[in-house]
């Protein structure tokens, strides 16, 4: 009783103890908290700009590109004689059902360009069904020849570059632990530098209750799902004008249309995509968290093809100049074929909370993922044989993707739901480097994350 009386007196006295700090204390505090804000600014802009880049690329891709399976630019060996120079022949003897689809280019355009420059120029636009092929002809253009393939009214005109020039494809909770210079220790309880959480703060400084704080820094688990549209991009910077690989340039005369003859493939159309997975995340600071996970992802694209033929045909690949496949699809518009890609991916992302609301946080997610192509039924187009065929050799199975999303969080009874748009771009070409068209996977759609909460 007496003991308590002494402590009580001490406590009462000490409650009234106070001093006015010097101005330097506030200056130091103010400087430090402003410095913290300045440190975060570059991180914000890094995410913002990367997101802007992806979004811009996505918009560019979605709005303006006409995608196709590879074909186009080439450097051929045969040099035409000078009489043929700058006299592209546009031979339109193909019976197309819809003439309006043809993209006619006045011959004088090419002639004019060539004359004006004295040198090569030029982009020759060639009618190939409803596609355009353009090629910067170094010095000469070759001739346009009729496709040898004429089944069911499908005829494509093709460009024969006899001038040796290039063609271009025309279609394209733990809380952030403040650094404590004077301490730097990490102990349990109050002395450990662990700042009292909001839950435990209510106990007051003089009570002993709630002093053992629950660790808010542990990894938390969540589930994620995506649904949207996938397509093929030839690159965020419209890198469609890649050169044809040598194995196509040097195609043998035995190819269906003769040496240097390239057929044009169908347009690639976007297809459905979805994904599902599980992830863990951890708070790096009050508004930044890091997440990692594992997902299954399905992407698809659609193309028009002709009939399937179960017989042998020679195709040209990077590894071997000619190889035989036992079944193929003809070039045509008879049916719609769905290219399917099944991936397992390991995403790593940083989430940046843009607002301060704990009830409806707006989160900006940006990150990368390593993905592995588990299986695919996608068709590869051989512009010399004018056929589509299945092959696994042409794909890069390991993919590096970059993705960004804006998610809005909602609190449910036992979980937090985050929903928002996501854009993902495959930085690795889908087909291997020997292909003239790297074909980057592009996805845009909705992302949903569910993070269970303990009651």
């Amino acid at each position, binding site marked *: 009783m007496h003991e308590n009386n*002494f402590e009580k007196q001490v406590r009462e*006295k*000490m409650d009234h103890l106070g001093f006015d700090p010097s101005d330097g204390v506030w200056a130091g505090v103010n400087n430090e908290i402003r410095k913290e804000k300045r440190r975060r600014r570059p991180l914000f802009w890094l995410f913002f700009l990367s997101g802007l880049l992806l979004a811009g690329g996505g918009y560019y891709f979605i709005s303006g590109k006409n995608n196709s399976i590879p074909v186009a630019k080439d450097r051929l060996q045969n040099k035409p004689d000078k009489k043929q120079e700058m006299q592209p022949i546009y031979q339109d003897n193909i019976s197309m059902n819809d003439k309006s689809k043809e993209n006619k280019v006045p011959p004088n355009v090419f002639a004019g360009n060539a004359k004006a420059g004295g040198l090569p120029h030029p982009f020759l636009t060639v009618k190939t069904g409803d596609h355009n092929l353009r090629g910067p002809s170094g010095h000469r253009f070759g001739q346009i020849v009729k496709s040898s393939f004429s089944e069911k009214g499908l005829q494509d005109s093709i460009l024969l570059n006899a001038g040796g020039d290039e063609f271009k494809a025309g279609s394209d909770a733990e809380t952030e632990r403040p650094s*404590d210079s004077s301490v730097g*220790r990490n102990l349990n309880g109050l002395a450990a530098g662990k*700042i009292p959480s909001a839950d435990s703060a209510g106990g007051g*400084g003089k009570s002993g209750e709630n002093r053992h704080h629950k660790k808010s820094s542990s990894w938390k688990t969540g589930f994620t799902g995506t649904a949207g549209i996938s397509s093929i991009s030839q690159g965020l910077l419209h890198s469609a004008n890649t050169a044809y690989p040598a194995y196509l340039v040097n195609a043998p005369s035995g190819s269906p249309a003769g040496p240097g003859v390239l057929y044009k493939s169908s347009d690639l159309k976007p297809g459905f995509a979805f994904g599902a997975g599980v992830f863990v995340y951890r708070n790096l600071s009050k508004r930044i968290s890091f997440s990692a996970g594992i997902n299954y992802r399905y992407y698809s694209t659609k193309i028009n093809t002709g009939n399937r033929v179960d017989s042998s045909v020679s195709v040209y690949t990077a590894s071997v100049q000619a190889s035989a496949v036992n079944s193929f699809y003809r070039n045509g518009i008879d049916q719609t074929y769905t290219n399917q890609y099944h991936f397992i991916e390991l995403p790593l992302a940083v989430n940046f909370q843009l607002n*301060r609301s704990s009830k409806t946080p707006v989160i900006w997610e940006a990150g990368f993922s390593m993905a592995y192509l588990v299986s695919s039924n996608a068709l590869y187009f051989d512009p010399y044989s004018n056929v589509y065929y299945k092959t696994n050799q042409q794909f890069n199975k390991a993919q590096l993707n970059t993705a960004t999303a804006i998610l809005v969080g909602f609190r449910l009874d036992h979980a937090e739901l985050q929903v928002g748009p996501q854009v993902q771009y495959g930085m690795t070409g889908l087909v291997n480097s020997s292909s003239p068209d790297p074909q980057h996977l592009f996805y845009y759609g909705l992302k949903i994350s569910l993070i269970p909460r303990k009651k």
Partner: protein
Amino acid sequence: MNQKKLLNDCLKGKASAQRELYTHFAHAMLGLCYRYTKSMADAEDVLQEGFIKVFKNLHQFNGSGELGAWVRRIMVNTAINYLKSQNHYQYDLSFADKSLHPVSDENPELILNAKELADLIRQLPIGYQTVFNMHAVEGYSHVEIGKILGVHEGTSKSQYARARALLISWITRNSMDHKTGIYARK
């Protein structure tokens, strides 16, 4: 002071609100830091470090408790961490020569003012000073003190008992000096 609005403004990074919060608590918190340290310069260092932590972790305070108590806890943490960074601290904490400061059950009446009492507390060996502040003023149990300081509960008890005895002896002497006029002439 509208605490909720002040907190929201602080979380938005408004400098005026942060300054207001600082001003509201700085006086009392410097008193707390003063009790745990040996000099005013050290106390101000702890105060500055503590307020930096307060502002960096303000989002954790959900308003269900008392903001003052939350800030106070951070200051105590910071002060203890500061003391732990001192090399001689662990030695002082484990130093318990029973013959030096016998336990006393006296309960003298405190006629000292707050600063005089605080100055006496600050003259205790740093281990005694810390344990005394934590138990007598902040109200931590010996079990909690043991966990926080990384010592056995018994050590905390014995440290406190001796700190208390030493302090009471000083207070008694001080009171006698005061009665005989010695204290008044100081």
